[in-house]
C-alpha cells in the first residue's frame, strides 16, 4: 500500500495491529519514514481540512483583488491577468504594468504608466492592481494627471494625459 501525501510520498507501510476503536498501528517499510511506527485514525475520526496550507503572498493578494472585482472583471483577470475599468475619461485596462491600455471616449488609444510608490519593493502583482484600481476609482483626475503616457508606438511623455477635461480632485 502506498501513501501519496507528502512527506509520505513513495513510502510503503504494513499494518502491524488493528485496534478495537478502529485505529491501526502502521510500520513504514520504505521511504523517508522507514522503520517508524505510527497510529493511523479511521476517516470518521479525522477532522476534515484540519490543516490548510497558508496562502502565498500572491494568492493572498489575488484573493483580495478578486473580492473587489465584478464577475466579468474577475473572469477576465483569471483568464488573462487583465481587466477593464470604466473611468470618466474612457476605459482603462489594468494588468500590464507600465503599459496600461487606455481608450478615451474620443476614440484615441494610449498607453499609460502609473505605479504605486515603491511598488518595486515587494508588492505581489495583484496588490499593485488593487492599489491602482482603488486609486483610479476614487480619484480618476489625479490618476490621469500623474500618468506618463505614450501613443501606441511612440515615445513616452510625462503626465498629465492630454486631451482630457480634468475635474478638481482630492488625492
Amino acid at each position: 500500500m502506498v501513501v501519496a501525501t507528502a512527506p509520505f510520498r513513495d513510502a510503503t507501510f504494513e499494518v502491524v495491529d488493528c485496534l478495537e476503536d478502529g485505529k491501526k498501528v502502521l510500520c513504514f517499510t520504505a521511504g523517508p519514514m522507514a522503520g517508524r511506527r505510527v497510529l493511523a485514525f479511521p476517516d470518521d475520526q479525522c477532522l476534515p481540512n484540519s490543516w490548510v496550507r497558508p496562502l502565498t503572498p500572491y494568492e493572498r493578494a489575488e484573493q483580495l483583488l478578486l473580492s473587489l472585482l465584478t464577475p466579468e472583471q474577475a473572469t477576465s483577470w483569471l483568464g488573462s491577468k487583465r481587466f477593464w475599468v470604466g473611468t470618466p475619461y474612457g476605459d482603462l485596462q489594468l494588468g500590464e504594468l507600465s503599459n496600461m491600455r487606455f481608450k478615451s471616449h474620443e476614440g484615441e488609444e494610449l498607453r499609460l504608466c502609473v505605479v504605486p510608490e515603491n511598488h518595486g519593493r515587494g508588492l505581489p502583482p495583484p496588490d499593485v492592481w488593487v492599489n491602482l484600481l482603488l486609486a483610479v476609482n476614487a480619484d480618476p483626475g489625479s490618476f490621469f494627471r500623474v500618468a506618463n503616457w505614450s501613443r501606441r508606438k511612440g515615445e513616452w511623455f510625462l503626465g498629465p494625459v492630454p486631451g482630457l477635461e480634468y475635474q478638481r480632485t482630492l488625492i
Partner: protein
Amino acid sequence: MSPDRQTVGDDPEERSSTHVGTMRILDRTGDTVVTWSVEEAATLERAEAVFEQELFAKKMAFARPEGALADAAERIYAFDPDAAEIIWVRPIQGG
C-alpha cells in the same frame, strides 16, 4: 423566526455591539491584517494607532462594506470603528 432559533447577529443592536473590523495593509506578504472590536478597547486603540501610523506614511485608506466591490470603496481620512474593512494602499505616481 422563533426566539429559540435566533442566532447571534440577528439583533441589529447585538450585531453593532459585536462588530469586528478588519484593516488590510498591502505589503510583501500580500497584506498584514489588523482587526478590532468596538467592545475591546485595547484592539480599538491598537487599530487607531495603526491607522494614524499609515496615514502619517501618506498612504491612502479605503473603507468598504463587507463583500462590496471596488466601486463601493470610499476614501477615508479618519479611523472609522464601524467600518467593516479598511484597505491601505500606497500613493500613486507616474512610472
